[in-house]
């Protein structure tokens, strides 16, 4: 019984892994933005990233 449950669990893990790989999942934190205006192409400064002014590393040991 335990073996069958583990087999089912393992199969679910592998199916999940396959979906993740096929669909190109990632552990990275990425913000999705809809409808970015075409004007950004000509005026990159008009786009404001949500990651602007992010706290930056100030350096070294």
């Amino acid at each position, binding site marked *: 019984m*335990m*073996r069958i449950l*583990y*087999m089912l*669990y*393992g*199969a679910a*893990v*592998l199916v*999940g*892994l*396959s979906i*993740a*790989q*096929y*669909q*190109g*999942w*990632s*552990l*990275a*934190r*990425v*913000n*999705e*933005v*809809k*409808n*970015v*205006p*075409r004007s*950004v*192409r000509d005026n*990159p*400064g008009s*786009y404001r*990233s*949500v*990651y*602007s002014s*992010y706290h*930056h*590393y*100030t*350096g*070294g*040991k």
Partner: protein
Amino acid sequence: MSAGGRTPPGKPQTRALNCPGCGAALTVRSFNNAVTIVCDSCHSILDAKDPNLQILQQFKAATDKDRPHIPLGTRGKIRGTDYEVIGFERRTIHVEGVAYSWHEYVLFNPFKGFRYLTEYDGHWNDCSTLKALPDVVSFSSPPKVKYLGETYKHFQTARASTSFVLGEFPWQVRVGESVEVSDYVSPPRVLSSEQTGNEVTWSMGEYMLGRDVWKAFRLPGSPPEAKGVYENQPSPMSGEVKSIWLTFAFLLLALVVLMIGFDLSAQNKDVFTGYYKYDSNQRGEASFVTDDFEVKGHTSNVELKTTTDLNNRWIYLNYALINETTGQAFDFGREVSYYHGYDSDGSWSEGSANDAVAVPGVPPGRYYLRVEPEGDPGHGMTYYTVTVKRDVPQYSFYAIALGALLLPAILLSWRALSFEHLRWAESDHPMISTSGGDE
């Protein structure tokens, strides 16, 4: 834990008897087969082979102190054969000054003879005498014996004394008599040897659940709860551990096949490379957009790699991967920093001059990157390369999947090991000794 001495059964007879000590009526259930009979009233041990029932010994005991769970005279079915409980004794061993007592029930069937039930802390064993001697396995530590092809590992040797008796016995029972008892286990079985002088008697016990004993003898109520782990108690995980690891091996193989399959089928292809520089001393708008590039195939990830010439500096890059047609953007920031030096502890380094990130679920289409670098004023010029790769296998998921597959197998193995640890903690060979054991 062992059952007592043995006498072949004869044809049963019944006879009306009275105790010569107190005159109380004796109930004799296996007359010709009993060697000693114990009077329930005055606790006289009588010679059943003597027509006058000579008193062999008298002992003092509170009658109600240690009543058998299965009353004498109760009939039940063990392994398809009807048996009657005819005798009961308590035996005790002393280990490091602590007394451990167990109970033995003598069962009798006029055609099958005697068998025994033992009980310790709610753990039961169905015991019978061996018809052949076990073979001692040479040079084994701990000692082992072999019987009918099965190897039994030594568990404990102790001096056991009889501390209470009731009913009939097919041997010369005495309160206070002691024998050396050695137990060898191969769950759910146990082989026990009892040595008195040069005479050794072997018996085999098989673990029984209390509820099965209650069912066999149709006893009212419920059996006493089993405490702890008994020497030959079968592990609930026995057999499961091996099968789980075999299943794990199969799943691991499937994982490797998947990994190879995805590695071979992944595009893993550079779709864009750009070379840039950033001068942190320069004021004004630093953001810019790259040329557009084609991202092909099904919805998958793109990996964005940043390679810099940083040296004791940092740079922060706000990236937006923008679909030229739909306006959908994947917005993220990456900090790249690399510091190194030398101090009293020696040389040190932190971070890396390069960075890679996988952007998930990017549909096919034409894209461009908006890049906005930031850095501390005064750092000067930083040269960096941005590379975009389509459909890159993410090995972190394989590691997560491996961990997820390992977890149940490790937990089950740990539980099985804990069970065995508890089993052997009470033996002469504890698995982890705190006082210098031999294992």
